[in-house]
């Protein structure tokens, strides 16, 4: 057989698999990662809503009443509920990943992961308690 092979010597005809647009649906860790990335949008939305709330509070009783009425709309409530779930996901996933990115050494020994994660959760709990106290103190 004299026909030349369909590849050059030292450079065979490779097969490269095309990656599906839906690669992130194939495995739970990939889906979790994409949800974590998407949760940034919810975090931004929550920050914007909070800033608007503060602005309305500062602008006067009338503006704040209008704000309160606007956020009671079913669509806004649904959006807030979804955003809240995503913000929780964002916080929990990042706190759990914190020990991977943040390596602390005390006396030459690495601080255990659970201490770093626990410190993050403790700080979150204290901050939440302070905000709750400020809002609910009457």
């Amino acid at each position, binding site marked *: 057989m004299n026909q030349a092979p*369909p*590849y050059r010597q030292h450079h065979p005809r*490779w097969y490269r*698999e095309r*990656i599906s647009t839906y690669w*992130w649906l194939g495995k739970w*860790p*990939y889906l979790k*990662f994409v949800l974590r990335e998407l949760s940034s949008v919810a975090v931004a939305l929550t920050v914007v809503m909070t800033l608007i709330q503060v602005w309305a509070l500062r602008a006067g009783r009338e503006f704040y009443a209008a704000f309160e009425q606007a956020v009671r709309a079913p669509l806004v409530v649904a959006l807030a509920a979804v955003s809240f779930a995503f913000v929780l996901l964002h916080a929990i996933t990042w706190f759990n990943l914190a020990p991977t990115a*943040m390596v602390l050494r005390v006396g030459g020994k690495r601080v255990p992961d659970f201490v770093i994660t626990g410190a993050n959760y403790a700080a979150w709990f204290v901050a939440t308690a302070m905000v709750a106290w400020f809002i609910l103190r009457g």
Partner: protein
Amino acid sequence: MAETIQLEVTRYSPEKDAEPSFQTYEAPLRKDWVVLDALNYIKDRVDGSLTFRWSCRMGICGSCGMTVNGEPKLTCATFLSDYAPGPVRVEPLKNFPVVRDLVVEITDFLEKLQKVKPWLIRKDNKPLAEGEFLQTPEQLEQFRQFSMCINCLLCYAACPVYGLDPLFSGPAALALAQRYNMDSRDQGARERLDMLSQSEGIWGCTFVGECTEVCPKHVDPAGAIQQYKLTAAKEWFKSFLLPRGSE
């Protein structure tokens, strides 16, 4: 326990196939057999044309990485009995071009590895007569985990960023760069910084974390990359605040 197990193995011949297909083989299901043993059984007794890489059979050489039932695995450390009653699907590592059957082309990784200068760089080398560079156990502990990499490339197969952007340096190369950056005997961190700080370097990593999950040697490439991001950010701040004095 059944006496045999079916293996669905990827076959690809560049001379005649447009794309890979699967061929089913039957192999003995023995308690102490790993997937690599079954592949060697097929190669020796059933089909000598089956092509795959392997060498040490004990998780040291990093040659026998393949995709087993969708997961990147070292086939010498993956027991057949864990997949009983089967079938077990054995494919080449994802994210690399397939040369033949289960063999992938890894030149891209080797070039990237070279670029991060994974060796000790010294600016003030001393004569051999003065002896070795000493290191305390604490200094060794700083980088020991990252030095366990065997270049098996399971992390590249698990990394969607590398799959989607082949320019990305990838987990193993970046972890090995960090291994030398953290070595007390090394003075090459500044030389590596320019390469590592590019968008194809550490900033290409989006912290999916699967590289760490699949690593058979517990190297934690995701950790190495995130830790280096902190270092690079600090260096950037230093150069921003002290443009002339950051060297």
